[in-house]
């Protein structure tokens, strides 16, 4: 789910690896998968969860109306089938779905949870994801009571949803953690303790949480009451370690104590020497430079931005700076994997890459210099304190100095202060990234709308906004995709952002583990298809 887009997120959840080298300890008996988590899950209350770790765990403990299949397609979950049109949707819930305590999962459990998500008193950060549902925004703003939300349960096995406006990607949303069910009586009994500890969580998914030692360990056991329990081959998922330390996670993998390992760039050499069988996972995120377009900033000048674009070669950047095999050179705001009308969006709406042209870049720079009053100002690059951020900044500092004679100063801040300065507009250039919430171009296209809080450069283009509004007002795929493709071309012509790369992560797993599925959207990694080779 929500990506914490820090460059240092290295397979947050995964510590995996393949030991071709001899593992010290024999693997445990039984069908057990062992993991090391990077962080303690901050929040297992699905109506308030926002982070990757929690999304991963909820994806294994819970099941929504739908979930993601092996190839990232939306497959039936608690809902057996559904009808969706421009005005709303009707979901038919399966009869055989039960909570872990044996009571049936009903449509009312969804109604209760969804109202909670938009209830202002619950203060859910992801309340906006529910905004396609009628009145969700008004409820979240406190203008209507939660009961006004456009969702109802005519009977135990029918869930009726009305839309605020047609929503072309609603089905995918129903697999998102915010849309998971919560049973009212259980929630009321737990009050503030809901989801705080293992006994305070009621599962309806493939696994149940049987142990949660904060900061140290979690145990997930197969849920025999899950409607599709026959599909789940694992008996247990053990999380015996929680640590941010990359070296420790590598050592645990190498010692045969955990089954998966995420590999950052710094460990690729060691992994190669240890002959780990590495795998790559394009995680669906897009990285780009955001130019500050607020009036008065030098980067508000189009010629200056164009000049920067014309000296930048994403191919060289990917091979020399990102340095991890499988990363794609940045081309656009909407990455290559996003589905379009029938084929991938990028196939239906191809873009020609911008190649570096030094002479043209210098011509643009001269124009910029004239418009900026005869001399080139110093530019400020906002960076955080990670090593990858420094690498980025130094690469561009060198590039702009040698090719254009632009002086780029690096303003290095700790993560939170970088965010504060970014939101306050105290920068000229900042490197940013975005991970998708759902598999539709809109999750990226809306980023540059003038009303979007994550539009850090404050790009404003009435035409762009109008096209996004048009795409949001209909569920007709062709109309939506056309509008978003046109909007994208406008933003790229404006050089509102400079796409740098589309990220790929490297990871490994022990050979005894088969069938780990990685998801670009939805809980990742997905261990519900895993089998253990004895």
């Amino acid at each position: 789910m929500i990506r914490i887009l820090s460059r240092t997120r290295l397979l947050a959840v995964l510590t995996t690896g393949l030991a071709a080298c001899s593992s010290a300890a024999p693997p445990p008996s039984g069908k057990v998968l062992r993991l090391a988590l990077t962080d303690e899950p901050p929040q297992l209350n699905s109506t308030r969860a926002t982070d990757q770790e929690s999304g991963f765990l909820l994806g294994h403990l819970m099941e929504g109306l739908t979930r993601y299949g092996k190839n990232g397609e939306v497959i039936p979950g608690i809902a057996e089938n559904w009808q969706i049109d421009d005005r709303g949707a009707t979901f038919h819930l399966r009869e055989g779905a039960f909570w872990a305590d044996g009571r049936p999962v009903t449509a009312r459990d969804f109604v209760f949870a969804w109202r909670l998500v938009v209830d202002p008193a619950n203060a859910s950060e992801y309340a906006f994801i529910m905004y396609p549902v009628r009145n969700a925004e008004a409820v979240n703003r406190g203008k209507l009571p939660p009961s006004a939300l456009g969702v109802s349960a005519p009977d135990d096995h029918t869930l009726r949803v009305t839309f605020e406006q047609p929503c072309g990607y609603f089905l995918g949303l129903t697999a998102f953690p915010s849309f998971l069910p919560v049973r009212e009586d259980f929630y009321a009994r737990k009050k503030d303790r809901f989801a705080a500890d293992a006994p305070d969580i009621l599962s309806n998914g493939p696994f149940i949480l049987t142990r949660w030692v904060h900061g140290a360990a979690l145990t997930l056991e197969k849920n025999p009451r899950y409607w599709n329990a026959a599909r789940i081959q694992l008996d247990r998922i053990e999380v015996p370690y929680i640590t941010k330390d990359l070296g420790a996670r590598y050592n645990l993998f190498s010692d045969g104590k955990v089954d998966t390992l995420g590999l950052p760039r710094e460990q690729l050499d060691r992994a190669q020497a240890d002959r780990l069988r590495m795998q790559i996972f394009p995680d669906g995120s897009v990285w780009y430079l955001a130019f500050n377009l607020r009036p008065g900033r030098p980067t508000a000048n189009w010629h200056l931005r164009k000049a920067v674009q014309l000296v930048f070669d994403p191919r060289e950047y990917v091979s020399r700076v990102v340095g991890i095999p499988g990363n794609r050179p940045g081309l656009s705001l909407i990455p290559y994997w996003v589905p379009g009308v029938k084929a991938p969006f990028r196939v239906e709406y191809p873009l020609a890459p911008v190649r570096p042209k030094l002479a043209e870049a210098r011509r643009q720079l001269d124009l910029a210099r004239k418009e900026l009053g005869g001399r080139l100002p110093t530019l400020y690059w906002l960076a955080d304190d990670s090593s990858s951020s420094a690498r980025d900044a130094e690469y561009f500092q060198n590039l702009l100095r040698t090719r254009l004679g632009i002086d780029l100063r690096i303003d290095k801040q700790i993560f939170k202060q970088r965010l504060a300065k970014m939101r306050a507009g105290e920068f000229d250039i900042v490197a940013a990234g975005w991970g998708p919430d759902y598999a539709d171009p809109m999750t990226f296209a809306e980023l540059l709308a003038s009303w979007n809080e994550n539009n850090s450069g404050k790009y404003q283009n009435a035409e762009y906004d109008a096209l996004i509004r048009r795409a949001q007002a209909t569920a007709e795929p062709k109309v939506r995709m056309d509008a978003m493709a046109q909007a994208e071309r406008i933003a790229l012509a404006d050089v509102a952002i400079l796409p740098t790369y589309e990220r790929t992560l490297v990871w490994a797993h022990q050979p005894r583990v088969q069938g780990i599925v990685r998801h670009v959207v939805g809980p990742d990694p997905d261990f519900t298809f895993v089998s253990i080779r004895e």
Partner: protein
Amino acid sequence: MLRYTLKRLGLGLLTVYFIATATFVAVHAVPGDPLSGAKALRPEIRANLERKYGLDRPLVAQYGVFLGNMLRGDFGISFTQQNRSVNDIIRDHFPVSATLGLLSLFFAASGGILFGSLSALLRGRFSDRTVMFLVILCISVPSFVLAALGQYLVLRLNHAAGASLLPVAGWGTLRHMLLPALVLGLGTLAFQTRLMRSSLLEVVNQDYVRTARAKGLSPVRIFFSHQLRNAILPAVTVLGVEIADITTGGFVVETVFAIPGLGRYFVQALQQFDYTVIMGLTVFYGTFLVLMVILVDLVYGLVDPRIKVAKEGP
């Protein structure tokens, strides 16, 4: 003695109050806040969150609430671990840090006294020089290097043995604690060794030691009742600060060995600007440190009868 203790406790309370206030001012003075994340919040969602956490109220009112709650021992709910109160975090994780800290302190104190004494008694010889070289090494090498190195050595050892002799990381049994406690305590051990050596060197040739020797006491008796007891005072002095330091300062070691201690939460809270956790843990640590310093001052009197704490000047 009682009056002195009460006076010290009163002053300690004042110190804690200043720590709390300074922390409150500091966390609110730096740019950024606990609600900002990688994804920016919509204004209405931010407003809901601010209302929930009371951040929409004026700073003075927030300070009042903070002090009031603190007096009741309630530090509030964590911003990042949204289902847990700061008290939950302290209750769950301080015992872990304390266990690790006490074990490493045991290593440090016993090792420090042993090696310091050996080194002083054998001063100038090869073993003295070796010990002093190792001491300098252990003081200079930061714990994150020692931790990573120690872990890697255990991994190699396990590979070579083809079995798990020692766990690479994790927490739960004494076997899990040995390596991290050693790593955490090594710096303190080295420091104590040096302290012990130099203060022992000061007393070895004192008149009363010569007298004891002339009386025909056994070297063992001389060492324990005349030399060690007189030389140990500086080591006890720093012990108070070290207890607090070592039971709370194991952040790196806790991270490397995946130990659910309090240090990790503290550092994480600072990175996340988790106001309630930062303030709660600072006050908790502050109180702990103040108490340890008072405790050590009281222990002086027991170790060295010449120091009469109760009769200290104004």
